[in-house]
C-alpha cells in the first residue's frame, strides 16, 4: 500500500463534516485541511479531529497547497462560489471533486460512468451532480442499458432536516443539474427532476421514485435483472440503498422506488441523500487516487 493522497475539504457544513468522517477511514485519501469562512461549529469539529483549518475561505488554503502537498480538494459549499474555488486550486494542480450543482466538470455517477471517466485520464474537475442524481441515475442507466429510454423522471423526497441552506437557496440548480445528468449520464433522451421536502417528525428516510418511459415495449426480465445488478453496485459504497417497490411495468412505463439510508457518520441515518453524495465523492476520489499512483509509478 503506497502513501495516501492528501486532501482539503472546502465547506465545513453537514456534507463537508460527513465527508471528513468517511475520508478519515479511507485507505487512499488523507484529509489534511478543512476550509471555512468563519469559526463555525463545523470548523471547530474539524479542529477537534486534528485537521488544519482556515476561516479565510479558499484564499486561506492556497498558500499551503504546495507545502502540504494537497492533491485533491472537495468543494461542499454552493454552486455560486464553486467556480472561483475551483479556479484557485486547480491552477495549482489540485484535482477538484465538486459536490455542488455547479457542474463545471463532467458529471460523475460512480457505478455508471466513473470507469469511462478514468479511462480518459486525469481531470481537473469532476462534478457529483446532486444527491437526487446519485440516488436515481443508476436506475435510469439500468433501464437505458437494456433498451432506449425516451423520457426519465425522478422524484426525490428528503427530510426537511437534511436539506441544508445550500440546497434551499439553490433548489432550481438541483432540478436543472439533475435533469441534465439524467440525460447525459443516465442515457434518457429527455430528463426531468422533482424534489419534495418533508418536515415530518421523526424525519423520513430519503425516498426516490424513478419513472422511465421506454421507446418500445419494456423487456421486463432483462430490465428487472439489470436493476438488481445496479443496486448491488451502489450498495458497495452505500449499503443502505434499498429497493422499496418495483419495477412496476405499466405500458411503456417502468417505475421503481428506492429508499436511501445513510451510514450515520455525522448526520442521522435518514439523511441518505447526504450520505450518498459524500460516499460517491469519496469513491470517485479514491479511484482517481489509485490512477494517480499508477501514473506516478
Amino acid at each position, binding site marked *: 500500500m503506497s502513501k495516501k493522497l492528501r486532501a482539503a475539504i472546502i465547506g465545513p457544513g453537514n456534507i463537508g463534516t460527513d465527508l471528513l468522517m468517511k475520508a478519515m477511514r479511507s485507505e487512499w485519501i488523507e484529509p489534511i485541511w478543512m476550509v471555512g469562512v468563519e469559526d463555525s461549529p463545523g470548523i471547530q469539529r474539524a479542529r477537534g479531529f486534528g485537521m488544519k483549518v482556515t476561516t479565510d475561505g479558499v484564499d486561506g488554503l492556497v498558500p499551503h497547497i504546495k507545502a502540504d502537498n494537497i492533491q485533491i480538494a472537495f468543494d461542499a459549499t454552493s454552486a455560486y462560489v464553486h467556480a472561483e474555488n475551483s479556479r484557485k486550486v486547480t491552477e495549482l494542480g489540485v484535482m477538484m471533486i465538486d459536490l455542488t450543482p455547479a457542474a463545471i466538470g463532467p458529471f460523475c455517477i460512480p457505478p455508471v460512468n466513473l470507469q469511462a471517466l478514468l479511462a480518459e485520464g486525469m481531470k481537473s474537475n469532476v462534478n457529483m451532480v446532486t444527491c437526487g442524481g446519485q440516488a436515481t441515475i443508476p436506475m435510469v442507466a439500468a433501464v437505458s442499458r437494456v433498451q432506449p429510454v425516451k423520457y426519465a423522471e425522478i*422524484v426525490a423526497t428528503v427530510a426537511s432536516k437534511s436539506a441544508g441552506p445550500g440546497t434551499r*437557496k439553490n*433548489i*432550481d440548480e438541483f432540478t436543472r443539474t439533475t435533469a441534465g445528468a439524467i440525460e447525459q449520464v443516465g442515457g434518457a433522451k429527455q430528463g426531468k427532476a422533482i424534489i419534495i421536502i418533508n418536515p415530518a417528525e421523526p424525519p423520513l428516510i430519503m425516498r426516490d421514485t424513478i419513472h422511465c418511459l421506454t421507446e418500445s415495449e419494456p423487456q421486463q426480465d432483462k430490465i428487472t435483472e439489470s436493476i438488481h445488478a445496479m443496486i448491488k453496485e451502489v450498495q458497495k459504497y452505500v449499503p443502505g440503498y434499498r429497493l422499496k417497490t418495483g419495477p412496476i411495468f405499466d405500458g411503456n412505463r417502468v417505475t421503481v422506488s428506492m429508499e436511501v439510508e445513510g451510514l450515520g457518520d455525522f448526520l442521522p441515518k435518514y439523511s441518505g441523500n447526504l450520505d450518498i453524495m459524500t460516499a460517491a465523492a469519496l469513491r470517485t476520489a479514491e479511484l482517481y487516487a489509485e490512477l494517480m499512483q499508477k501514473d506516478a509509478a
Partner: protein
Amino acid sequence: MNLKGKKVLLHDMCLRDGMHPKQHQISIEQMINIASGLDEAGVPLIEVTHGDGLGGASVNYGFPAHTDQEYLTAVTKHIKHAKISALLLPGIGTVDHLRMAADCGVKCIRVATHCTEADVSEQHIALSRKLGLDTVGFLMMAHMITPEEILAQAKLMESYGANCIYATDSAGYMLPDDVTARIGLLRAELKPETEIGFHGHHNMAMGVANSLAAVEAGAVRIDGSVAGLGAGAGNTPLEVFAAVLERMGADMQGVNIFKLIDVAEDRVVPMMEHPVRISREALVLGYAGAYSSFLLFAKRAGKKYGVPAHEILLEMAARRTVGGQEDLIEEIAMEMKAKKVG
C-alpha cells in the same frame, strides 16, 4: 359578522386547481371560454396553470393536454380586464418557467411551498418582484403548524419580496377558528402594505364559512373556483361565496354574481367528468388532513390493488405527507394489499 364595505379580491382557481379533477385535460377552447366568462363577470384574478404549477407536466402528476405556455398564450390574448396568475412550486417549476409565464403576459406569480419550507422560495419570489409582477407567497397545508410558526415563514416570504401572503388550507382541514387564528396573526404582524389571502378546499363543506372568517380576520384576497372545480371536493365555490358576500354588502370590486353563476352553470358544470362533491374519499381528505390532489391518485391505486381509497388517504395523512408526494400512494396501496393477503 359585519363585512359591510370590506374590500375582497376574488381569485378564480378553476383553470389551475380545476385541472386536478380534469386530470389536466382542459382544452384550449374550454380555457378561453371560461376565462372570458370570468373576465366579463368582473373577476379580477384568474389562475391558469397545470394543477401542480408551472412545470408540473410529468409522469408523477400527469401530462396536460397542452403546455403551460400554450394555455397562457391563448388565454391572455382573450382577457380584457382580469390579471392572469400562474402558480409555481419550487422543486417542480424553476425560474425559467417563471420567465416564460411573464413573457406570456402573466401579471401575478404565486410561489407555493409547504408551510414550513418558505426558504426554498427566495430565488423565485425575488425574480418575480424584479420583473415587476404581483408576487404572492403561498404557504400550503397551513393547518399542520401553529399560527406563530406560519407567521415566521410568512415573514421570510415577505422579506424576499412577496407583496401578498396566503395561508392555504390545501387539505380542506381547517375550521373557521383555525382560519381566524392564522389570518388574524398574519394581518396583525406583517407589514400593513402586505396583503393577506386565503385559499380553501371544500372537503368538510367549510369553504364559504372559512373564507368569510378569513375576510373578517383581515384577508383581502380569497381563492375560489366557479362551480367548485378543484382538487378534493373542490375549492370554495366562487359563485356561492360571491352571492354571500353580496348579501353581506362586501365590496367585491364590481363582480357581477349573476354572470358568475352563469359561467358556473353553463360553462364549467358541463365539462365535469364526474361531480366534484364531498365523496367518502374527499371527506376523509379534509377530516384527516391530506393534500387534496391525492384524491384521484388514491382512487386509481385503490382500484388497481383492490384496497379502499379512503384508507390509503388516511395512511397518507398519518405519515404526514406534504403536497407533491403522489408517488407514495401506489406504494402504500401495494403494502395494504400485501397485508390483506398475508
